[in-house]
């Protein structure tokens, strides 16, 4: 059961100028570096940046998918080196700065300790870059010293101070959103709280945007990274896109994480783009990002390359605007710079080779139709439940289970949906809970999973789900029981 009440006061309304200033004042006092945040000074800094460091401009004007890895280390010097190397050796056109877990928890004191320990011991005691502790000046040094646009990537439910400091520090792209950085990333916040927090972040991005400094916002598409059916992921993207647009965001990158079935992934990326165009206001520039497989990786680097390059092939066919690459060391821990470079280069090789070919796959249109129909049903339910207000509707939808996510960390989502792969490896739902997708779509899911149950001669159960979760780690796509692969292919 969800902990939020079902009569939420939250509304999808633009925060007033006064409220923005008021909130900014209170937020900046949360850690000492907040004092350095000054909007006018920040605008001036952004205006001083060359064209090729303007995130939205670079992303939106690209003619083929740009590559961006994930990467963050505690110290400024090492972060600069790391990003330079990813750009120069890896050829990443867009760069990341991944934030450490303490900062995500707003535990700046602990982050400070970790940063200082790292400086004294030389080994990384944080799993990312503590941008709040580095402050506005630290961020600007990073922006100045690295020759490509950089995005803040994190997982912070309450990212208000992080946004204030990194925007002032010159970053022009910011990942996350009230659902996508709540449900997979924390158990400590209600959706109302995170929607409120992200309204501030988006409103702040909107304020910069109004002044001609476009801040790109990127809802986190993969959610829990674990067999999330496309319609659920896309619905969350649309909701977060709508909420951001209300606050004045004009550059929105909707995301989706590789599931591993080529047809389904291509269909989902196309649906993401077309639904994004359909639902988001005309004055928003919609781009899309494809994340290479976000679930559990194979333990060895060689097999990890197989997963990564399948992502590259998918991207070459679907042509999203951006691809977030994985490294071959994903299984074990935060990757070395070399491994990150290797992930980018392997992806690029595959993409370049496949991109030249006009590949037309059977069944993409049907699958896209299914995804769009289910997503429409979910969006309808949300808007209904909210009496036309997407913020209220979202809270109620999660409360009632009309919207749900598999394997949520947070209790905001019922967690009653259970995904499983069908005989073709496409992700379907085994259990719908109270999910508000249409009956036709449900029939498709049921029929496809029945096929699989027959192929394998076993009843669908949690065991099957667990097998599917492990499958790619184990070197396969579908978690077939030993020796029971059937001959349906």
């Amino acid at each position, binding site marked *: 059961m969800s902990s939020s009440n079902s009569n939420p006061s939250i509304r999808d309304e633009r925060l007033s100028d006064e409220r923005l200033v008021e909130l900014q004042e209170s937020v900046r006092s949360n850690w000492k570096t907040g004092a350095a945040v000054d909007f006018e000074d920040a605008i001036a800094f952004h205006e001083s940046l060359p064209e090729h460091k303007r995130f939205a401009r670079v992303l939106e004007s690209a003619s083929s998918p740009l590559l961006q890895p994930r990467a963050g280390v505690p110290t400024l010097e090492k972060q600069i080196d790391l990003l330079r190397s990813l750009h120069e050796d890896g050829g990443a056109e867009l760069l990341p700065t991944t934030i450490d877990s303490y900062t995500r928890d707003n535990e700046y004191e602990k982050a400070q300790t970790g940063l200082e320990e790292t400086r004294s011991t030389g080994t990384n005691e944080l799993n990312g870059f503590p941008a709040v502790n580095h402050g506005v000046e630290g961020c600007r040094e990073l922006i100045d010293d690295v020759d490509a646009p950089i995005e803040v990537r994190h997982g912070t439910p309450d990212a208000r101070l992080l946004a204030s400091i990194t925007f002032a520090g010159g970053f022009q792209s910011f990942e996350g959103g009230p659902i996508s950085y709540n449900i997979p990333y924390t158990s400590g916040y209600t959706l109302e709280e995170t929607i409120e927090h992200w309204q501030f972040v988006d409103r702040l991005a909107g304020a910069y945007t109004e002044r001609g400094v476009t801040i790109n916002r990127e809802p986190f598409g993969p959610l829990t990274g674990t067999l999330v059916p496309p319609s659920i992921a896309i619905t969350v993207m649309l909701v977060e896109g709508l909420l951001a647009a209300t606050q004045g965001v004009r550059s929105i990158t909707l995301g989706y994480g590789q599931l591993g079935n080529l047809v389904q992934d291509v269909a989902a990326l196309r649906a993401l783009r077309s639904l994004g165009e359909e639902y988001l206001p005309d004055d928003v520039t919609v781009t899309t990002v494809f994340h290479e497989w976000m679930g559990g990786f194979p333990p060895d680097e060689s097999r990890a390359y197989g997963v990564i390059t399948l992502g590259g092939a998918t991207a070459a066919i679907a042509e999203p605007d951006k691809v977030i690459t994985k490294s071959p*060391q994903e299984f074990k821990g935060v990757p070395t710079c070399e491994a990150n470079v290797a992930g980018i280069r392997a992806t690029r090789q595959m993409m370049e080779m496949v991109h030249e070919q006009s590949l037309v796959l059977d069944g993409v249109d049907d699958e896209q139709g299914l995804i769009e129909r289910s997503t429409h049903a979910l969006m309808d339910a949300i808007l209904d439940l909210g009496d036309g207000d997407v913020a209220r509707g979202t809270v109620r939808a999660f409360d009632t289970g009309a919207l749900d996510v598999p394997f949520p960390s*947070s209790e905001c989502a019922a967690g009653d949906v259970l995904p499983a792969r069908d005989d073709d490896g496409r992700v379907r739902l085994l259990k719908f809970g109270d999910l508000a997708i249409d009956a036709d779509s449900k029939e498709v899911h049921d029929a496809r999973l029945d096929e699989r149950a027959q192929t394998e001669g076993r009843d669908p159960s949690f065991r099957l789900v667990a097998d599917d979760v*492990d499958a790619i780690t184990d070197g396969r796509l579908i978690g077939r029981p030993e020796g029971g692969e059937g001959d349906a292919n």
Partner: protein
Amino acid sequence: MATIVLGVIGSDAHVVGITILEHALEDAGFDVHNLGVQTSQSEFVDAAAEHDADAVLVSSLYGHAQQDCEGFHDELAAAGLDPVTYVGGNLSVGQEEFETVRQRFRAMGFDRVFEPGTQPEVAITTLHEDLEETASVPEHVVVEQ
């Protein structure tokens, strides 16, 4: 049947692993109390006391396990508890050798330290082994999993 307290420590939100573990341990007949993600040391200790746990299984994926587990065994001792303790997941930041990591967590008091990707079956087997006689820490265990 033995009682097990299970959770993800610190501010780690990786939930998939313990969800799978929970199901597997229950299927194996254990009495499982899954505290979920982002569980503090004291929540672990309280649950262990409340349920009189034979074993406490700590999961940590995100790399901050060492900081999060510091002093955990003192807390348990302070509460007069001495369950079998396991820790598993991705226990350090980066690409450190697992043997080094294991040594470190053994020194912190964990009875067993499991490497990334440990299958639930392995946990079940060792639980059976370790909880066979008494619920106290088995001195005879030599082969680490």
